[in-house]
């Protein structure tokens, strides 16, 4: 399985600001995803990060709020823009290789917005 590193591991941010989360994989992977886990909730897919093109967002998530980059097959960033306390969550990077779709996760970024 791939080794996935996420930065930062946690942060406390002021409302109205933005935070960029980085995800680095130790090998080239086909698929990269970003998930959110709100307090007491399950994991919810935000978007699929596509290499060289715009990310594919799930219902309820938009590019203006969660811009994503994926410049190559080993790296992606997720930005949480114009943050509010409702954005306080754990954000997780995930990668998938081949089929079936077993996904592997980074350790997550715990974001608190005050």
């Amino acid at each position: 399985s791939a080794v996935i590193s996420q930065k930062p591991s946690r942060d406390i941010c002021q409302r109205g600001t933005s935070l960029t989360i980085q995800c680095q994989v130790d090998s080239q992977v086909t698929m990269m995803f970003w998930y959110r886990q709100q307090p007491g909730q399950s994991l919810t897919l935000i978007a699929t990060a596509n290499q060289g093109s715009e990310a594919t967002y799930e219902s309820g998530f938009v590019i203006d709020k969660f811009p994503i980059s994926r410049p190559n097959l080993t790296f992606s960033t997720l930005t949480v823009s114009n943050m509010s306390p409702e954005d306080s969550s754990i954000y997780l990077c995930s990668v998938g290789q081949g089929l079936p779709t077993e996904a592997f996760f980074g350790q997550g970024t715990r974001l608190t917005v005050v």
Partner: protein
Amino acid sequence: DQQVKQNSPSLSVQEGRISILNCDYTNSMFDYFLWYKKYPAEGPTFLISISSIKDKNEDGRFTVFLNKSAKHLSLHIVPSQPGDSAVYFCAASVWGSARQLTFGSGTQLTVLP
């Protein structure tokens, strides 16, 4: 509408006994199912999976059972160990989908020494 449901938010089991975690799904298109384990401050770790062509898959102390007619799967851990204490997520996907897994809400398993 939750397509994958874990109705027990928590479960406590004595060390050495069997732990049974349950999961129900509603989407009949799902044909691949996975269990993940999550410790605090860590990302979920893949544990075991099963495709819909099987009704059982075993890996050491972990066995997953699938009942397609009931749209139900379960994870059995035998014997349970204190290190198994974690949150367990059930997830489902459509075979060949290059995209998302749909997760349940998780069950906190506590194995008592």
